[in-house]
């Protein structure tokens, strides 16, 4: 969600990554694919980079914050 929102904001400000333009000519699709790639990298990093079983403890609040942030970005900066 953070990657998608960040890429979307960059697109709205006119700062499209060259990679995004290369992936797909339609910004919606390239933003989604790059966001998906970022999510995969982040998930693998968290899965293999942290050994503590308590790593899921803050996730509900972090996820709720991320949902709110994503909604705010999309509503305020379409």
């Amino acid at each position, binding site marked *: *969600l953070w990657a998608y929102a960040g890429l*979307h904001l960059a697109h709205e400000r006119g700062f499209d990554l060259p990679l995004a333009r290369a992936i797909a000519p*339609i910004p*919606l699709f390239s933003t989604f694919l790059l966001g998906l790639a970022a999510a995969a990298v982040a998930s693998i990093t968290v899965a293999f980079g942290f050994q503590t079983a308590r790593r*899921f403890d803050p*996730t509900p609040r972090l*996820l709720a914050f991320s*949902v709110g942030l994503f909604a705010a970005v*999309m509503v305020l900066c*379409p």
Partner: protein
Amino acid sequence: VSSAILRAAEHFHGHVALLSTAALYHPAFLLRRSKRRAVAACLAAAALVTLTAALGAAIYPAYRSELKPAIFASSPVIGMIFERKEHLGVGAVILAWAGVLLHLRGRDDDGERRGGRSAFVAFIGAAVFATTAATMGVLVAVFKTF
């Protein structure tokens, strides 16, 4: 692609969108208790919302070339509503699959599902996003269609 096919795909997209929006509330309701197992409901809801997004993505290029300029020319507000709707739809897909993955985590020693509360939050977020996107989609479809 003929306009008849686009119109049929658009209608199918709209009906599946409403169905998947309702479906997303099912796992959200079931997962309010962390120990509850609801793999089939989670997978079915995520699959439905993904089908909705895939149908939307299929007709999106035609929307950009045929409808978007006309909508923005006649009503920029409706155009901006559509721009918001598509991103909220993507958010619903992301959160639905995040909810599935979190729900499929194993259990702790006390029987609580690890990530169970997070799966609940993810499906609530997906359901709210899908509801908002579906409502916006109906507003746009009433205004202009293929």
